[in-house]
């Protein structure tokens, strides 16, 4: 096998909060090949977002490391782009100026960036909206700008944190097919966090199931469904089998997470 595009070695993270240490991630060893689409699923609070932020270099690990092309990640750079759960568009910038912010920050040629941004806005179906402001767009459109912005940064690795969570079910399905199309056209390496199991199966080559906090790798599931994938695939029996299998893996974790949440809420109420 070729050297992985993205990898982590014994990655651990603890947060200090009010003098107490919370262990969020423990000993993660993950390899993602170039051009691979990998999803992460896990109960809420298990450290998925923290994992992406570590890989991006937004926060530092407690021990272990994340690597891109074998080089350790120490700070955010131009080789990784992050698609956040909240679109995070600057409200005072129009769509095109929001889309080119990556190249702008990295000091690259703005004319070229604008051309690139236009082509990606076109790709996500937003041609003609370049001069609109975020508050004039729907949630789905803003999320597509979010995606075009990450693509325009030109990074080979895309980290996506529940990018479709805030969308209604129909828009989400459309966005899923759009994303698979864009991914196959651009050959990006994608790490995609979601809490929707069917979304993970539909998009991914491989699904990583995390345990409850501290997040560890519970199991990985290779999704051997043919590509290109159409929405109709979701109604096939094979698809259902994958979803069932991952759901069984995750069920116990989710129950544990709910139990903890209740316990913590009760504790907080008593205080």
């Amino acid at each position, binding site marked *: 096998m070729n050297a992985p595009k993205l990898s982590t070695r014994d990655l651990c993270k603890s947060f200090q909060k009010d003098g107490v240490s919370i262990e969020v991630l423990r000993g993660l060893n993950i390899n993602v090949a170039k051009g691979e689409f990998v999803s992460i699923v896990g109960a809420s609070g298990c450290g998925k977002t923290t994992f992406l932020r570590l890989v*991006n270099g*937004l926060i530092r690990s407690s021990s272990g490391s994340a690597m891109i092309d074998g080089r350790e990640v120490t*700070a*955010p*750079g*131009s080789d*990784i*782009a*992050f698609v*956040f759960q*909240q679109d*995070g568009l*600057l*409200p*005072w910038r129009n769509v095109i100026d929001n889309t080119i*912010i*990556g190249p*702008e*920050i*990295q000091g690259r040629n703005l004319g070229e960036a604008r051309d690139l941004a236009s082509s990606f806005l076109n790709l996500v179906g937003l041609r003609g909206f370049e001069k609109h*402001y*975020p*508050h004039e767009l729907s949630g789905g459109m803003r999320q597509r700008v979010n995606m075009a912005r990450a693509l325009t*940064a030109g990074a080979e690795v895309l980290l996506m944190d529940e990018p479709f969570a805030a969308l209604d079910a129909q828009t989400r399905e459309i966005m899923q097919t759009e994303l698979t199309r864009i991914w196959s056209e651009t050959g990006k390496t994608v790490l995609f966090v979601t809490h929707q199991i069917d979304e993970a199966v539909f998009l991914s080559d491989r699904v990583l199931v995390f345990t409850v906090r501290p997040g560890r790798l519970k199991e990985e599931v290779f999704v051997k469904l043919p590509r290109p994938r159409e929405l109709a695939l979701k109604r096939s029996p094979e698809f259902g089998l994958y979803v069932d299998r991952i759901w069984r893996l995750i069920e116990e974790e989710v129950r544990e997470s709910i139990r903890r949440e209740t316990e913590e809420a009760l504790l907080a109420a008593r205080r």
Partner: protein
Amino acid sequence: MISPEVRRWIVSFGVAAILWEAVAWYLDNKLFLVRLGAIGERFVELIQSGELISDIQVSFIEFAGGFGLAIIIGIGFGVLMAASRRVRDLFDPWVSMLYATPTIALGPLFMLAFGIGYTSKIALVFLTAVFPILINTLAGLKTTDRNLLEVVRSFGATPRQIYFKVRIPGALPFIIAGLRVSVARALVGVVVAELFGARAGLGFLIFRSAQSFDTAGLFVAVFILAICGVVCVELLKWIEIRLAPWRFNNIEED
């Protein structure tokens, strides 16, 4: 064609003017309420004598000087306090205290210290106007949306880029809102400063008129001040909407 808003204003003022005239006619007390016509006549007289022009000039210089200084110092100090924890810790108690103090009460002290001319007036206007600007600048720079910060950081933004691309544009609407509050306070500052002693100015015109039982002259000054206040506040509101339309998008009037 006139817009519904303009029509509302006209109707509202029309009704008020009729009521005014009716009450003035009924009371028939020229010391308390004079007819609008008398105010208009007095206005023309004051213009012709040149008095009003020089009063407006003087008040304008005091207002512009004090308010301009308040903008420069208020924004400058707000930026400094947002940038440095030490500066903030040092000045925060003073800012909170002085903001809550009716600084206008210092007027007589300023007359004693700086004399009866422009300096004392500008100082008082500055002091009444600076704190809302300072506090809003600080608040605007400190309440930047975390999501936006994380986005630009993820693209590798330097602290300087974060400041100029996110924090400052995000703070602008706050700063304009601060100016809107300050403008009204600055106008009050002008009038009160002149009441404590002056040679000319709209506040002094009010004082003069009251001394000589010239109610019409007093109302001339009051109306001019009211119009200035409304124009400034509306202008800043307009700028605020232009600058940050997203903040007004979800607000519904009923």
